[in-house]
């Protein structure tokens, strides 16, 4: 699909808004589809997480337990467990199957835990916090395996690469750092000339590139081994919030991101052109997620909206 320019890509079919899910009492902070595509999880500042089934999007369960708002959540690879990061300085591991117990509480951070992710083997969890550290936890016992003094400002995003050997972290201090997961040593720092705060980082599906969102309304695709960025995506607004973005690979390659102008933006990965702007939310779209197999996007809105909207491409 990548190399030959002579083939015309199929004409772009727009996404349509098909559902609105309202169940949170405060801003929704994060939505994620499970890796097997059967569930959608959403986290909110109302201290709860909600599990929705897919594709009918009925409410399956509300996970209650945190004592403060939840900022991020992550699914384990087998879609059995969810880990949530909360303002109450803890992370919780929940069972995504009945009876939906909270299995573990991971304590150790000294400030708001902002971001979390499982490694592909799902035996480790990485979390980033406002206390400027990254912590790696063992899933089975809940013990902290490592603490990395990573940045000089809050860590906004952490992600494992495809084989779990590297961790990328982004921070308000404007740098993206790549760490070796087994030893916690820093392997590379990516920093741009103007160093705007980094609000989100993520590895590409093959682990070779990093998608970096910065608070100057720009998304960049970096090749981290050369330290140079290859693509820039702009047109949206992102100056305040840590908006998540993602790769859409089910039907052509796109970059999807939320925006502070209440829309969801889609860009063509190679051409960098904006192909669609999804309008429906009534406040900043803080999080977007793509279904692993179907052409569906779920997006979440902040306090003025409090809903999750589902978009479908025919």
């Amino acid at each position: 699909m990548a190399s030959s320019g002579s083939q015309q890509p199929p004409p772009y079919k727009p996404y349509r808004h098909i559902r609105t899910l309202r169940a949170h009492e405060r801003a929704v902070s994060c939505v994620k589809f499970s890796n097997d595509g059967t569930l959608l999880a959403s986290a909110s500042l109302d201290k709860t997480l909600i599990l929705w089934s897919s594709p009918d999007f009925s409410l399956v369960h509300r996970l209650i337990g945190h004592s403060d708002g939840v900022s991020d959540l992550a699914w384990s690879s087998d879609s059995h467990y969810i880990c949530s990061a909360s303002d109450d300085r803890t992370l919780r591991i929940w069972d995504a199957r009945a009876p939906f117990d909270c299995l573990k509480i991971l304590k150790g951070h000294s400030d708001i835990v902002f971001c979390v992710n499982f490694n592909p083997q799902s035996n480790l969890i990485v979390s980033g916090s406002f206390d400027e550290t990254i912590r790696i936890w063992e899933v089975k016992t809940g013990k902290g395996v490592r603490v990395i003094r990573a940045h000089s400002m809050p860590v906004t995003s952490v992600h494992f690469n495809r084989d779990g050997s590297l961790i990328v972290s982004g921070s308000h201090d404007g740098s993206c750092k790549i760490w070796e997961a087994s030893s916690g040593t820093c392997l590379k720092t990516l920093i741009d000339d103007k160093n705007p705060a980094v609000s989100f980082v993520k590895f590409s599906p093959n682990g070779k590139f990093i998608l970096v969102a910065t608070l100057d309304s720009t998304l960049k695709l970096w090749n981290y081994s050369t330290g140079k960025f290859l693509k820039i995506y702009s047109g949206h607004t992102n100056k305040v919030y840590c908006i998540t973005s993602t790769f859409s690979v089910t039907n052509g390659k796109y970059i999807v991101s939320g925006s502070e102008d209440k829309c969801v933006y889609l860009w063509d990965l190679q051409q960098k052109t904006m192909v669609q702007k999804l309008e429906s939310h009534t406040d900043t779209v803080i999080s977007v997620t793509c279904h692993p197999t179907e052409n569906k996007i779920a997006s979440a809105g902040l306090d003025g909206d409090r809903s999750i909207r589902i978009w479908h491409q025919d």
Partner: protein
Amino acid sequence: MNAPIIDPLQGDFPEVIEEYLHHGVTKCIAFNRRGTLLAAGCTDGSCVIWDFETRGVAKELRDKDCIAAITSICWSKYGHRILVSSADKSLILWDVASGEKITRITLHHTPLLARLHPGSSTPSLCLTCPLSSAPMIVDFNTGNTTVLPVTVSEVDSGPAPPSRNKPSDGPPYTPTAACFNKFGDLVYVGNSKGEILIIDHKSIQVHAMVPTPAGAVIKNIVFSRDGQYLLTNSNDRTIRIYENLLPLKDGLTALGDLNKTVDEVAGVEKMKAVGSKCLALFREFQDTITKVHWKAPCFSGDGEWLIGGSASKGEHKIYIWDRVGHLVKILEGPKEALIDLAWHPVHPIIVSVSLTGMVYVWAKDHTENWSAFAPDFKELEENEEYVEREDEFDLIPEAEKVKESDINEDGDVDIVTVEKDAFSDSDMSQEELCFLPANPCPDVPEQQDKCVGSSSKLMGSNNSGSPLSEEAGQNGQAMNHASSPLEEDTGGTRMKRKRKPSEKGLELQAEKGRKPLKSSGRLSKTRSKPVADRDISNGIYGDDISD
């Protein structure tokens, strides 16, 4: 994938002890094919599988019938099965994913070494070297044992009759070493006369014989992972490396062809002639000064390095050579004899087992590469004189200062293709078992009194992995304590009053019994602290640290 950013200049062999793993008294260890799991056999007959990434216990294989010490442990090719040999004369085959015993076979003699046939993912054959008998092939499906010949003279009287279930009679053998070649079609036996016999285990025929110089008893015989090199450890305190001249696949047919081409009269001379075409002596390794005996020699994962442990009691020394013969390092551990050694299949990590049952993990000393933090900086080996450009410090008007963007922004970026990884053999048809699912052990809701009561139980168990691994997930009672050492850790980080102890260090401290009661107090303190007081929290943690 991440190879471009890892510094290639760092040596490829470990230097220091990074960690120790302790769960029962370990006797022998084996890595799975990718090095993600480490299986360890213990003196109480159980087998512990460590998740090497988290350094925690992933599974325990325990059989109530087998309580005697494990003498050797071996993985099947794709990690689905583990074979253990035990001091109560039995061999047990386990299914790793389920943790269930598949079969147990009792032999007439204690097996010292047992190796599964490397050719398939669910092997039915294994090779075992018993204490006082010749090596034999055991078939799990039928339970039959086939004794292999150990001297060439046996062959003169025709192929040895397949001895089914025949206990060996005659003078007791010195334990003979044996191993499969890479695809398992041939068995290489090292006998007490210092000869290497190449045997076809199906027809029980010796096809070739290679005498080692000095003719000393061969104690270990091991192939490198890629099957290109063979090492023997002999009683004359020498490790020898042989280059394997036979093709890796179809070694048997090649051997048959060689037999036909060599026109010597059948017998010992012919065996030697064929043998000289199968193995070529490459190098010899010995310590000429201390003349130490070697224990558990093996190759590194890529076959570039060779390690051997010193067999002297009272010292834990690991010698590392490169394949050409240069001694590159001697690793010295605590003063306990070394009983087993393994090199990680992928990373430059060595795992050694000491007589006390402790497993030591040796890894490279991590020195931060400073240019990792500041990408514009380049590390220099020595001082360089900097010659500035003619116009370097000129003040240029703004217009020219625009940095030209030399990025090819139009090139297509491929975000989904993954390179074939160096590990997959061309014949890999089945799923490899790389990881055991990590199911979190449920916490019990915290209560202060429970904290104090169960804390001593947690601290008492002395190991690095999950403290309650014996319960294997049933009782998560003291799990909340796993986090309490970290509370101190956090405080240490913020206050920078003392060097931040490693996780292990904290556990060791805690075991001394001082911490448990204090930490429960700390739990209640932090819980009641309102989040609003975040600014003052520094001071609070600081107070707590003063012991």
